[in-house]
């Protein structure tokens, strides 16, 4: 009896360890799947000439492509354009969204549900469905082929997103916080700017970063509303890099450009990792 139990004990222990080991191997596989492509891009961006075709996994440090990129005014210009567009869109959206989120998250008024629905509906609008109307709008404002057109157009997805996420953050503050402020004689404006806003720093940072990423990565509007190279944003600039001939696509420079425009953003994303995840899921789960 005792011996049988002991033997089965060993089996159970073995089973548990085997399971743990199996899961760990699986985890490594998934890690390789998600990380390897980006790693390979880094490795490739650091190789020039025929070294690019090497299949060695060990990186070398040949900065040729990076130096060339930094001396290319069209590429550096596109980074500046993207920074201006994504930055402005983010700031405008946050300003507009904080006010709206206060109304939607903290105040009671008829039609609130309807407004929330309307904002949610906008977030499922396909970009192509507003394209011809947006084209007309951009021309009316005289923004065609200017980065201002993108700042305007990107509001269609950054505003609903930021309003939605910030509303769900706003709702989480205890009612008492506002009641205390009301007892102190605060107006709604003061409650928002002096009581709630200072508490929302982390929420604003993560929501803003997400909005920034959305704007930074956008392709369709950027491809359509900008004609000349010097006004392009980063994604289109990378998309339009071409080689001397059809058969000689410059993968080295493209990889280098890809790394340059993603590495700073990735650093931020990894730094704000936890908050990003809660911002993303707050928007979706509570919807």
């Amino acid at each position, binding site marked *: 009896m005792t011996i049988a139990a002991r033997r089965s004990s060993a089996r159970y222990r073995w089973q548990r360890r085997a399971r743990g080991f199996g899961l760990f191997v699986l985890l490594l596989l998934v890690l390789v799947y998600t990380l390897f492509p980006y790693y390979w891009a880094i490795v490739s961006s650091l190789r020039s000439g025929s070294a690019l075709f090497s299949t060695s996994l060990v990186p070398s440090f040949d900065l040729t492509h990076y130096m060339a990129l930094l001396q290319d005014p069209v590429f550096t210009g596109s980074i500046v354009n993207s920074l201006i567009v994504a930055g402005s869109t983010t700031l405008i959206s946050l300003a507009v969204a904080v006010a709206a989120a206060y109304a939607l998250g903290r105040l009671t008024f008829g039609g609130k549900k309807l407004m929330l629905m309307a904002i949610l509906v906008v977030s499922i609008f396909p970009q192509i469905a507003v394209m011809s109307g947006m084209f007309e709008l951009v021309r009316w404002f005289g923004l065609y082929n200017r980065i201002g057109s993108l700042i305007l157009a990107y509001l269609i997805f950054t505003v609903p997103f930021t309003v939605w996420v910030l509303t769900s953050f706003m709702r989480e503050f205890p009612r008492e916080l506002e009641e205390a402020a009301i007892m102190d004689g605060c107006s709604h404006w003061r409650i928002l700017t002096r009581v709630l806003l200072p508490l929302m720093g982390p929420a604003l940072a993560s929501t803003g970063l997400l909005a920034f990423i959305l704007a930074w990565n956008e392709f369709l509007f950027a491809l359509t509303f900008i004609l000349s190279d010097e006004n392009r944003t*980063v994604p289109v600039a990378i998309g339009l890099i071409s080689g001397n001939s059809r058969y000689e696509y410059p993968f080295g420079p493209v990889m280098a450009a890809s790394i340059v425009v993603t590495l700073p953003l990735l650093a931020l994303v990894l730094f704000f990792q936890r908050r990003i995840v809660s911002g993303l899921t707050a928007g979706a789960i509570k919807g």
Partner: protein
Amino acid sequence: MTPKPASGSLQRKEVFAAWIFLAPALIALLLVAFWPLARTFYFSFTNATLDDPSIYDFIGWLNFTEIARDAQWWRAVGNTVLFTIVSVVLETLLGLGIALLLNQALPGRGALRAAILIPWSIPVVVSAKIWEWMLHDQFGIINNLLIGLGLVEHGIAWTATPSLVLGVVIFIDVWITTPFMVLLILAGLQTIPEEIHEAALVDGVPSWKRFWSITLPMLRPAIGVAVLFRALDAMRMFDLSYILAGNNERTMTISIYARNQLISFQETGLGSAASTWVFFVIALVAVLIIGALRLDRSTTAGR
């Protein structure tokens, strides 16, 4: 005692304040969303062209019927539907698997949780270019690996072989968007109390049944929402196909078709009609999925 002020006035003040606070967002959305959408609907009944959209005639439903007769449109619809179904199914399964893995107490799961954000946060252009390079027929590392393993003799031209290219688009899309699925499903998993798992464990419920009868039903709302978001996104997909294959008929989505009419052929009227189609197709899908979610909620809640 002074008469009590009507509580209505306080309430009215709050309502007024609410609309003031909402106004900027509402104005922005009316300007950049509802107005352009209405104009798109409007243009779809005209023969306007892009170079001077102020000169046009109303031509009724002609644009819509012309598109409905265009074989290329139906190819685009077919591609989009196929792409949406296959990629969303794969992403959901893979996302569920990775989320379950990440929910285990394992060494290294923090690293994976961070790493998973990378494919999601880099631009689609960059992902497309990276994979294009990795799948390169002569120098791509994937072909090198396959040759090295003796699985193929010559490198496969993944993006240039017509029968493979939609598969490649789906494969890359799965890589890009699975993280989003993982995060949503993981958030759903974390709302299931630990004690529920422990109860099932103590009760001797076998692991497949724990998954099938407890975890999965409790995850259904989270998976439903994630599928909704992803399906709507996949239906309107533009950039990945466009970057990888341009106007290739095999991968043309309805968004690419509509943009071609609108921008490349300068046909504002026709393009608007195609865009309107896209809008209603997506609205239909949204209504169907949301309806299914509602139905699911009301039946499983057992009222």
